[in-house]
């Protein structure tokens, strides 16, 4: 089947290195679908990369699996302690967001790749200071689309509001974004087109959505010139 990655590489050969990644899925035993099945389905839906907590770095059914570590801690000290244990350089380190002070501190820690779960935090917990830090340190902020799909009513409205607030800051400070489905089943996975459309609900433009989908694939080994440090 012709995937988006294939279409892009045909139309724009220079963009063939671009990846299309779901920034967090939870296969069996956390979910009801095996990693292989998720990879097969993800490939059909247009993805070429999946970020999987606790997995090993490998390629399944043509889909690159990026291992991840999710750190959720109440204090910065806890997060810092866990960061020093999991910094193997091969895993994407994702930290669950919290209060404003916590987020500001976490964004200054070395080794953090993604700040996730912002829709569960209070309003203003990710402010312009956090946005600037995230942009300067190339730390991505994750947009979890599962509340848009699986929740209705006030909680969904709150999530939409938080994402819209995030987009306003993104348009000003241009920090990195990732998009994740947090799928625990193949039935929770959505196609790339669907994700781009869902992201338009909170004001994310199509180009930004494509950029966000490409981010996770480059966070561990960011593209750019080699710098001589000594």
């Amino acid at each position, binding site marked *: 089947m012709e995937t988006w990655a294939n279409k892009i590489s045909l139309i724009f050969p220079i963009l063939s290195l671009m990846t299309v990644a779901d920034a967090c899925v939870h296969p069996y035993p956390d979910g009801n679908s*095996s990693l292989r*099945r998720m990879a097969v389905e993800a490939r059909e839906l247009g993805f070429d990369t999946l970020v999987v907590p606790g997995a090993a770095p490998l390629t399944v059914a043509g889909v690159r699996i990026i291992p991840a570590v999710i750190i959720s801690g109440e204090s910065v000290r806890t997060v810092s302690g866990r960061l020093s244990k999991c910094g193997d350089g091969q895993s994407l380190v994702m930290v669950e967001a919290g209060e404003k002070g916590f987020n500001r501190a976490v964004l200054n820690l070395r080794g953090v790749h993604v700040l996730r779960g912002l829709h569960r935090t209070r309003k203003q917990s990710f402010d312009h200071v956090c946005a600037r830090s995230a942009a300067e340190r190339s730390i991505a902020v994750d947009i979890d689309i599962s509340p848009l*799909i699986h929740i*209705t009513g006030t909680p969904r409205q709150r999530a939409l509001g938080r994402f819209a607030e995030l987009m306003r800051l993104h348009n000003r400070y241009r920090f990195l974004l990732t998009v994740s489905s947090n799928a625990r*089943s*193949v*039935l929770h*996975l959505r*196609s790339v087109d669907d994700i781009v459309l*869902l992201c338009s609900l909170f004001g994310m433009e199509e180009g930004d959505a494509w950029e966000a989908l490409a981010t996770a694939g480059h966070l561990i080994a960011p593209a750019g010139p080699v710098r001589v440090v000594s």
Partner: protein
Amino acid sequence: MKPLPPTLRTKKRYILATIEPMGIGADQKELYQAVSCALTSLFGDVRAAMISPAVIDSGPGHLILRCTRGGERDLRIALSTVTVAGNDALVLRPKATSGTLHALRRRIPRVAPPEPGGPEEVSFGGKVYCARRYQGQKVDLMEKGIKSQELLFLTKDDLEE
């Protein structure tokens, strides 16, 4: 009475969506209710009335919906938020949008039937499941039992390990 000339008729758009997992038991009415609820909860009654969705055809593994022109984008978004129809967990994946049914019917995916032999019993993780195998790698497992049957989505390689 003369029929309305084409220029005065309401312009419609048709959306083809596939239904996963295969062999789901939801009927057309349940699917319509699921789509209508999803659309109303996401965009409200006013927008849903403007879009006026209708399920006009459903078959094994696919569904065709009709909406007013200009509403197809919102309907596609609403389709991706459908997670349940009746008592079945499912996903509707929009595949194509067209102005004519004829063009859309040509794009209905051919459903690969489950491999011959009927559902077989397999053991996985210490439990007994009914396995439904599809062409290619996919295997769906449904736990044997009366209620709260667990569904697992695996591949042939997972079962062989």
